[in-house]
């Protein structure tokens, strides 16, 4: 069994690479749409300037100006937990260790400057440079820029591209000291600090030493860590799916078995019609209808369900379980409040899935009921109920397990729609928001995560199948 899972995992590696490639090249093939002209920054005063700045940052950070295949390798390295550590991951929001490193270098620089120990300052600058795989000239030039006037510092960083002659060195050191002192004197401490950070990441981030690291999914356009956004959204979508999947299978199994046992009967025929209808009902329509008729205060029967979200505003204050005797008499409690909010979205996600699953279940129970081993069991004198639930049931579960492969992607599609309609901040809504914001990193991360979840569910399906069907060979 372990070998089987391992082998399955091995086969997943090329698939995962494929997922990475598809996700990346779908983004990269966008005609200048992302990381460039298509950027749409909210509330930016100077759109052009800001867009350029962001574009430059992305070039440094992700190498968006490089050929696509190089970008792809950078990105693969970035999202992989095993790979090369990138130099100068010191912009705010990066790893704490990196930040500490930069801060240490900076404070060392400040100390050296205060003591007029230019030798020490140069050493530090060179160390900085080595860390980032730069020539000393570049390093010095950058440092000069960093410590220059706050507004032009960053742009100054780009022209330095010379080897360091003794004269240059002298000049740069002088400039460095002077500008740094200026910055400090003018009380631009925050600016100096910020610029230093930025300067540290100013040139293109390079591959550094190999390491086991946290996967780095980058930042959103608004500068938040993508991992943070995902870790907020993912549990919500997983919660929705965890409620939905058992419900789908429960309803499907019960109705499917019942319909199969009385195949051709009234229940079988009527449920067949109902299920096909349900299957064809578009989620976008059903969700909208529910919102308009069940969650709207304007209807004569009043608002039966909340319009969206996962909790009431004051959910935090609620006790977990419902109770009587509060200020308003009955208090629903956190649990009921959540269920009340989840009811409509979960129904929306469920109905299509169980319509399909129920038909599949019916068919496979029917097949199994006429199987020879069922006859054998009956010839042994086994009670029909036991025949149904132990002999027939276990065999007819197999197609249902296979079907999980098509239910899960459908659920993902469902979450996009349902989360958008009911304003639930899960993965689906995040994907739509990212698309509207044309947020490159967020889009890639969401799709990648979707792909990985898809792969994991395929793996789980295969393992479940291997457990349920002893005929699957393990070696």
């Amino acid at each position: 069994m372990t070998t089987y899972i391992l082998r399955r995992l091995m086969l997943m590696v090329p698939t995962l690479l494929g997922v990475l490639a598809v996700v990346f090249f779908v983004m990269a093939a966008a005609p200048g749409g992302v990381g460039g002209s298509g950027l749409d920054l909210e509330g930016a005063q100077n759109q052009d300037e800001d867009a350029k700045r962001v574009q430059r940052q992305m070039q440094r950070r992700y190498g968006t100006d490089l050929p696509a295949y190089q970008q792809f390798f950078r990105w693969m390295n970035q999202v992989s937990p095993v790979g090369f550590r990138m130099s100068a991951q010191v912009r705010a929001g990066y790893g704490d260790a990196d930040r500490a490193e930069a801060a240490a270098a900076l404070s060392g620089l400040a100390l050296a400057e205060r003591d007029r120990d230019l030798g020490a300052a140069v050493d530090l600058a060179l160390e900085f440079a080595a860390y980032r795989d730069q020539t000393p000239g570049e390093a010095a030039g950058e440092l000069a820029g960093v410590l220059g006037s706050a507004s032009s510092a960053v742009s100054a960083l780009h022209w330095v591209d010379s080897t360091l002659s003794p004269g240059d060195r002298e000049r740069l050191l002088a400039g460095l000291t002077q500008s740094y002192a200026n910055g400090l004197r003018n009380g631009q401490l925050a600016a100096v600090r910020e610029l230093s950070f930025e300067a540290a990441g100013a040139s293109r981030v390079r591959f550094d030493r190999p390491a086991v690291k946290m996967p780095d999914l980058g930042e959103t356009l608004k500068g938040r860590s993508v991992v943070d956004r995902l870790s907020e959204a993912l549990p919500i979508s997983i919660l929705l799916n965890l409620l939905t999947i058992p419900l789908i299978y429960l309803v499907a199994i019960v109705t499917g078995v019942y319909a199969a046992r009385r195949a051709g009967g009234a229940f079988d025929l009527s449920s067949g019609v109902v299920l096909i209808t349900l299957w064809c009902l578009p989620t976008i329509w059903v969700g909208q209808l529910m919102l308009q008729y069940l969650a709207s205060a304007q209807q004569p029967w009043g608002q039966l369900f909340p319009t969206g979200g996962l909790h009431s505003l004051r959910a935090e204050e609620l006790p977990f379980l419902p109770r009587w005797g509060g200020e308003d008499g009955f208090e629903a409690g956190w649990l009921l409040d959540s269920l009340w909010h989840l009811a409509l979205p979960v129904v929306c996600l469920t109905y299509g899935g169980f319509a399909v699953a129920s038909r599949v279940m019916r068919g496979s129970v029917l097949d199994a009921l006429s199987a020879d081993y069922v006859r054998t069991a009956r010839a042994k004198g086994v009670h029909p109920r036991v025949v149904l639930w132990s002999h027939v049931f276990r065999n007819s579960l197999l197609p249902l397990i296979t079907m999980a492969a098509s239910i899960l992607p459908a659920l993902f599609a469902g979450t996009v729609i349902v989360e958008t309609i009911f304003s639930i901040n899960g993965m689906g809504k995040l994907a739509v928001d990212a698309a509207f914001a044309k947020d490159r990193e967020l889009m890639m991360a969401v799709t990648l995560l979707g792909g990985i979840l898809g792969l994991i569910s395929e793996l789980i399906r295969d393992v479940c199948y291997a457990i349920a069907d002893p005929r699957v060979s393990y070696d």
Partner: protein
Amino acid sequence: MSDEQNKAAVDQSSPLLDVQGLSVSFGNSGDGDGGRLIASDRVSMSVYAGQTLAVVGESGSGKSVSAMSVLRLIPTPPGSYDAGRIVWRGGREAVERDLLTLSEKAMRGVRGREIAMIFQEPMTSLNPVYTIGEQITEAVLLHQDVTGAEAVKIAERALRDVGIAEPVGRLKEYPHQLSGGMRQRVMIAMALACEPELLLADEPTTALDVTIQAQILELLRKLQVSRGMAMMLITHDLGVVAENADTVAVMFAGRVVEFTDVHTLFERPLHPYTRGLLGSMPVLGQKVDRLGTVDDNATIPADFPSGYTVAEHDASAAGTGAYGGEGSLLHEVEPGHWVLCTAEGEGKPTPARLSGLRGAAVKTAV
């Protein structure tokens, strides 16, 4: 054997299982009676304690349906038991019971415990998702008042009895890990684990290699003798009949056409169909250009809703429907020798009269 005395209480001359005029038909529900397919028509046969009844006939002649009817395994609907009785004199009570009118609960007590059955397709007759052990002990636990550990012991012994080496290891294996012959042995072990009085064997060797067939039949014979068990052996192989059977029922198109002991059948076949069947058997040392064939391809009784039709074919020789058709019945033409024919006209048929007729259904070598 503890049942010995009980058995003695039953009149020895009366058969253990007596099928009397059993009719079974199939049809789609809602189609009305018009579209019903008669699979077995007024079938009568008996099995005596400790003896083997061979039911022989071609595919679709109603052999399996009759055997499955004994255990009431035909799903209803679409099947239905239209007429007849199945009298069972076995069991602890050793009283006469009609299996067709027994309650479903009582019937479950008969199945597996008193009458067991093995099937034609060992490949598919075992549940693929349960181990051999689970499937054997299921029956044991159901019918015998034993603990799980004891049931495993019984299962082990059952496997050893059918000649499976290392039964302990085999118990943990799944059906797909066994060969066809092994699976059929497992099926037999499962059927015999509860020591039934009657074993219904529905073409137990058809799906197996010839060498394995011989082994399985040998095994069945051995077990039958050692346990004093009765057996109803369904086959289309006359060689198997000759070697194993005490009595034989020949079936064609849903009807029993001849029922007698095995010697009489091979020496004095009276019904044209039986003669055709025997004529189609090669005889060692006898050289013929072509073997005889039975020319009636009435394999699907639906095509012949009235049942047997050799008579139509044979009309020129035997007069109108002497051996089949609606009005014909099984007649005891000599003691213990029953033949399907009409009793009308010139009185009761006798062996002399019947054997005087030419078997036109048989096309012998040109």
